[in-house]
């Protein structure tokens, strides 16, 4: 071996010093409660998930300022699954087995959630999942703080049908599990409401699709049949930008054919000029523009934490806010961070949301949420044009799919099952 050069030596000593400091911080951390944050900080999903990591760091910091939890400080453990689905499972295992975290807040795409589910069930961990999803799932170890289809898609369709008088429907989505399942539910729902087959057009596009010319032109033709037409879009994330641009360029305004989107929020709009999109709709459970003191306070502390006045807040951030506060309350109630005790204590816990109401954890591990419909404004914000009377309870298994009509999830005794058939009175054990 060659003798080390001077800089290399300096580098090595530095490394050793760094490792010892790292080690000592681990030993010091013995009387903290660790909270795992499992969001991609690199790769395709970094665009959405980085914000959620920052949100969690802010919430934990604030809780520590209030004196921590059970007399201990909370310690965030951030890992980067790099938008790589199998890596999500590995990182989840690392968080639970090696870091011994009390709970994990994370995942965005459904495929990443499906990838970590077996790990959480095997190691009896706790996952709070903050994004709207396709439903058809309820695991003992997962709490779904985002919207189930009946808390976003169905009310949005109701709004279009009853308030706008839409008769013809385009269901456009990106080709993966969330849009496919949601559209299946919506198609069944529309047909149940008496919409005929020829009045429904379903279209799927690949991830990151950027050439929307023919699809928009098809939508235009579909919409020129003399009946009021609307597009229900489950197009994922940033494929929306060229889609809306094309709509604008081909002269389709929101007044002619409104598009209601389930995956377009303030964060997605902050990347584009929204002037041509004014009037298109989105259905969420939270908008940054909601006029409420709790929301104002949240936005203010977010801007302070992230050190920028320009950053927006969005629906999944609110979901983490709710989920984190629910977990804190449940741990306080149980007096312990033990998974089984927390799972039992959290059912029925009620915390304020950011839109002036409260969210309650239900027996099926979903929560109650109000549904808001907003129109896009030229400043990239939404203005609420309609909202449900009260909060809507999340439904794990859709009532509009033939396979899951009779299935419910109830994690309290005597049922204690995520997939319980009310007709046959049997628990299938297949929770996802």
């Amino acid at each position, binding site marked *: 071996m060659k003798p080390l050069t001077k800089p290399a030596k300096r580098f090595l000593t530095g490394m050793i010093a760094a490792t010892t400091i790292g080690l000592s911080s681990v030993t010091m951390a013995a009387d903290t409660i660790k909270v795992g944050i499992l969001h991609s900080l690199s790769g395709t999903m970094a665009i959405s998930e*980085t914000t959620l990591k920052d949100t969690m760091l802010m919430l934990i910091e604030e809780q520590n300022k209030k004196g921590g939890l059970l007399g201990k400080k909370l310690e965030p453990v951030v890992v980067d699954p790099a938008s790589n689905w199998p890596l999500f499972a590995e990182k989840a295992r690392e968080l639970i087995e090696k870091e011994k975290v009390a709970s994990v807040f994370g995942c965005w795409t459904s495929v990443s959630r499906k990838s970590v589910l077996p790990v959480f069930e095997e190691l009896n961990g706790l996952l709070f999942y903050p994004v709207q999803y396709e439903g058809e799932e309820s695991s003992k170890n997962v709490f779904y703080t985002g919207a189930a289809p009946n808390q976003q898609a169905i009310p949005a369709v109701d709004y279009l049908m009853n308030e706008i008088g839409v008769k013809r429907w385009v269901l456009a989505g990106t080709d993966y599990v969330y849009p496919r399942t949601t559209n299946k539910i919506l198609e069944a729902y529309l047909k149940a409401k008496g919409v005929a087959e020829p009045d429904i057009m379903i279209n799927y596009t690949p991830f990151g699709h950027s050439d929307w010319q023919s699809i928009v032109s098809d939508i235009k033709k579909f919409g020129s049949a003399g009946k009021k037409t609307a597009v229900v879009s489950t197009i994922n994330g940033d494929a929306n930008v060229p889609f809306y641009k094309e709509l604008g360029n081909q002269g389709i305004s929101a007044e002619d054919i409104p598009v209601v989107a389930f995956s377009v929020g303030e964060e997605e709009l902050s990347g584009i000029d929204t002037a041509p999109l004014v009037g298109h709709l989105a259905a969420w459970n939270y908008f940054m523009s909601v006029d409420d003191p709790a929301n104002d306070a949240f936005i203010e502390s977010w801007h302070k934490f992230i050190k920028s006045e320009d950053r927006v807040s969005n629906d999944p951030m609110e979901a983490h806010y709710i989920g984190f506060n629910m977990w804190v309350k449940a741990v306080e109630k149980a007096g312990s961070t033990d998974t089984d005790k927390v799972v039992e204590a959290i059912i029925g816990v009620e915390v304020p949301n950011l839109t002036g109401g409260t969210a309650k954890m239900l027996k099926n591990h979903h929560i109650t949420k109000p549904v808001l419909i907003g129109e896009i404004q030229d400043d990239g914000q939404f203005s609420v044009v309609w909202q449900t009377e009260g909060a809507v309870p999340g439904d794990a298994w859709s009532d509009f799919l033939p396979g899951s009509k009779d299935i419910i999830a109830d994690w309290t005794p005597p049922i204690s099952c995520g997939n319980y058939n009310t007709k046959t009175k049997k628990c299938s054990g297949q929770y996802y």
Partner: protein
Amino acid sequence: MRHRLWHHPALSSLLLLLTWLCMPAMADEDSAALETAFELFQSKSFDHKAEGIELIARSGHERSKTILEALLKSRLFIKRDDKQIVIGEKLGKQYRINSALAAENLGTIKKRKLKKVGINNNLRRQIRTALATIDLSHPDPSVRLEAAQSMTGKTDQASLDLFRTILKLEQDSKVREALLNALAIAQLDAPDPQERLKAIDQVAGNLDPAIRAKLAHLEQDKNYPEVAQAAKRALDSIEFKLQIFSVLETLFFGVSLGSVLVLAAIGLAITFGVMGVINMAHGELIMLGAYTTYLIQQLLPDYTGVSLLISIPAAFVVSGLVGILIERTVIRFLYGRPLETLLATFGISLILQQLVRTLISPQNVPVSNPEWMSGALEINSVLALTYNRLYIILFCLLVFIALFLILKRTSLGLQVRAVSQNRDMARAMGVRSARVDALTFGLGSGIAGVAGVALSQLTNVGPNLGQSYIIDSFMVVVFGGVGNLWGTLVGGLSLGVANKILEPWSGAVLAKILVLVFIILFIQKRPRGLFPQKGRAAGD
């Protein structure tokens, strides 16, 4: 919901009465209507606002058009302190406000002190119709024409009466035509079958979708077979025209998709085609071009058009320099080892992506389109060519021609071709092959940067921009024939058109797969692509 006093119908009418009574004697009735409308705008209910808009539209006040336009563009605000309705204009972080009624300058004010008068789609539609009605008596015939056209098919009884009145006075033939058309469409619903027949004659050959829907309805008319037949004839001729235009449309879509493919691939045609370097970081060089556009736009926020034009050479330089850097530091040690080159450049692509994520933002960045690139060139009501696509097609051809001339007409081009055909011989003739390699790679990379400028106008500018184009680029180059610019052009355009022909009946996902399968089969038959290199250059 918080109730305000004026929400209550009885109270609001009382308020209306009071406003009327309290009006100073000097104020005319028009202003009174506006004042009442402004009271209604304070309400949260969209129905109240609709009443307000109606009042303004009917008032005939000289300010009504300005006020409605401001409302449509969300520039109408309520001052939080004295509830006055003002028109605001953004000035940095502040707003310069004018009172809506008197156009009196009220100075500048912070955004928080203003509350926007919110509207929804129904109100927007109402305002647009109201504005068009006002425009129908505009002195400029082109404005009148646009107003008449925008109201076609959306008329109610009141506007039809208005149309008839205006028609008596209208001199301009085009406006008359548009008005008659709008009336005819409304007449298709007339109770008298003779009226309907006349209307069908009037609209024959018109491609407006509203007409098609109504004709299709008339065709089913069992009571008047004469009307049904006339409708069917008119419909058939319309359908025939539609088919022709739909073929033209598909062709345009195909060519525009193709030109994007060509733009993305043409830089690769040089680095991969001419030099034989499998550059997986090609997509990231495109991305750097797009980010250059973004950065220059940040420097010149008020001149979108100019900054876009400046971006073209700037992106060429930035991506070109990065390309040269990659070539000098990595690729030149790996010539003749394609697998290692592939892996090394793939690594570089990941580094470049993460660099952008760390230095700029993991989020997509906004790049705005200049005014002249938005909208569409309307050939008729079914065929509209979007301007951004037209410009991209044009731009693609320009880039192609420029590159072609560089390779065929300049000494650099000569040297590049010499080195790519026979490196040793070229060196023996005194060509500094290392320098030529670096410049060629720089040229290909620079062109990728220029493609990035074009793509920034079509799609998202973000760290993942390059990844979505790298596969397509290789596909085009391999299909067109390695080492041949013409091949890239023809290959790209034909793949674009093929994709667009397949898309309507197979869906976008399957169309992409089918095109790939086709290329695999094609390469089996002709391993060297559409335009294989001939002669000694091909010998390897």
